[in-house]
């Protein structure tokens, strides 16, 4: 067991940069963020890194560690025993400096999502087991790692066409709420661009909160879009009976 770890951290900004190597003394149980802090304290005071909680709760310290989008505070260094640990900023967002990227696009998308629209004014009663299903979506810490890894945003730069997995989770949270009456299906299909997701599940594989993004949010929403737009038989009966969509409380 070596008594130090070798880090190779990206240093630079929008004009370019390079990886710089640092050696950090080993401390039992240390995480990548600890090592980055050590570098900042001892070798490179100007190293830019965003973090807040160091407990995988604030979603600030997202980066790419040996190519994999991860939270720096939730990644133990001993996972990389004997390897150089490459630490880079998230690729999908514009770089500001070193490990810090500009994630403000996500906040612009967030503004477009209609807020909770209750059927009756609060306070209201609902069954716990009816809302259990969306509880999972509340665990999101907005680390945007799923947005970073999604090939639609990462490789195709379709930020104007697709809201990305994090916001499909947000949509699902409201859309499946038993007391919500807003109709989000047209937005999910059109501006939201859910059809761009090809369910390749990378978002799910990086989510530090283990949210089943694809299986429980995106796919059920795709099915609801299909209910409304791609199901000729259902459409026929809907027209015949003048019946609304079951996903919307009347």
């Amino acid at each position, binding site marked *: 067991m070596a008594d130090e770890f070798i880090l*190779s951290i*990206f240093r*630079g900004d929008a004009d*370019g*940069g*390079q*990886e710089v*190597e640092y050696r950090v003394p080993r401390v039992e149980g240390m995480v990548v963020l600890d090592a980055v802090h050590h570098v900042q304290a001892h070798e490179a005071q100007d190293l830019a890194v965003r973090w807040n909680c160091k407990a995988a709760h604030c979603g600030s310290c997202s980066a*790419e560690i*040996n*190519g*994999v*989008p991860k939270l720096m505070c939730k990644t133990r260094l001993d996972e990389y025993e004997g390897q*150089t640990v490459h630490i*880079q*900023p998230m*690729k999908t967002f514009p770089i500001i400096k070193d490990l810090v990227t500009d994630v403000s696009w996500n906040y612009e998308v967030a503004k477009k999502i209609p807020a909770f629209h209750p059927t009756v004014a609060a306070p209201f009663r*609902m*069954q716990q*087991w*009816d809302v259990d299903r969306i509880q999972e979506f509340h665990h999101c810490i907005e680390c945007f790692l799923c947005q970073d*890894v999604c*090939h*639609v945003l*990462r*490789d*195709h730069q*379709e930020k104007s066409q697709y809201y990305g997995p994090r916001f499909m989770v947000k949509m699902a949270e409201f*859309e*499946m709420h*038993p*007391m*919500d009456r807003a109709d989000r299906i047209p937005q999910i299909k059109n501006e939201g*661009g859910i*059809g*761009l*997701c*090809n*369910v*390749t*599940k*990378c978002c799910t*594989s*990086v989510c530090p909160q283990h949210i*089943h993004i*694809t*299986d429980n949010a995106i*796919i*059920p929403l795709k*099915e*609801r*879009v*299909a*209910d409304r*737009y*791609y*199901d000729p038989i259902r459409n026929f009966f809907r027209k015949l009976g003048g019946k609304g969509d*079951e*996903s*919307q409380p009347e």
Partner: protein
Amino acid sequence: MAQTSQPGVNHPKPRFGKMPYWVEPVFTLIAFSGFVIYALWEVLFHNTGTYHNYVSPFFSPDIAGWLGVHILTALYVAWMPFVFRFSCYYYRKEYYRAFTFHPFGCAVPEPKSHQTRPYKGEWKINNLHRYTWFLAVFVLIFLWKDVVQAFIFPNGFGVGVGSLILLVNAILLTGYTFSCHAWRNMIGGRKDCFSCTAHGKKPVSYGIWRRVSALNVFHGWWAWASMFSVWIADLYVRLLIMGVIHDVRLF
């Protein structure tokens, strides 16, 4: 060892879990291609899949017989599970990764050729998955009938290796079919509020939806297991017909 890089360039190859990222898509590529080639061989060069009381899943139900056709008989059946699997959400993950490289692996840059071709997202035809589910259920009913038949020998009830293979195959196909995402939506997933139409009680559909959701967690596992079981079941019956192997009667 400092390397010059623009952010986003020179990203090291990611490694999720223990294996290199390309192992899974390469396995998928080989397994799916192998299965499709095998299926074509079966469909194009054989017209019967019956060996005494065993029927291969490729030839059941005997639609060609109902229609009085005698060539490409398996084709009348095989297209149904094919369209079901092709539009399956789990298979999409596998083939979009392994065959179209969208993306080949997570955080793996897509090939250069993708940069000049606009990405349009999923094939819209996949939205019809719900209809193909009914086709799969239709076929499944006959496969269960075949399972019963596979335990009835000329001298009464019996168990052969073939009976067990067909039984396991039917179980795996049932798990696969009833863990489907479209079925999960149909049976209750599309509702926001189960209690609202049931006077605050848990309706039956809620219970079914919960069970389907539990099965659905392993949908990918069911998909692989049932693909291989169909393959094995068909091959077993084919080899019996060809006289290459002999069925072992257990009792």
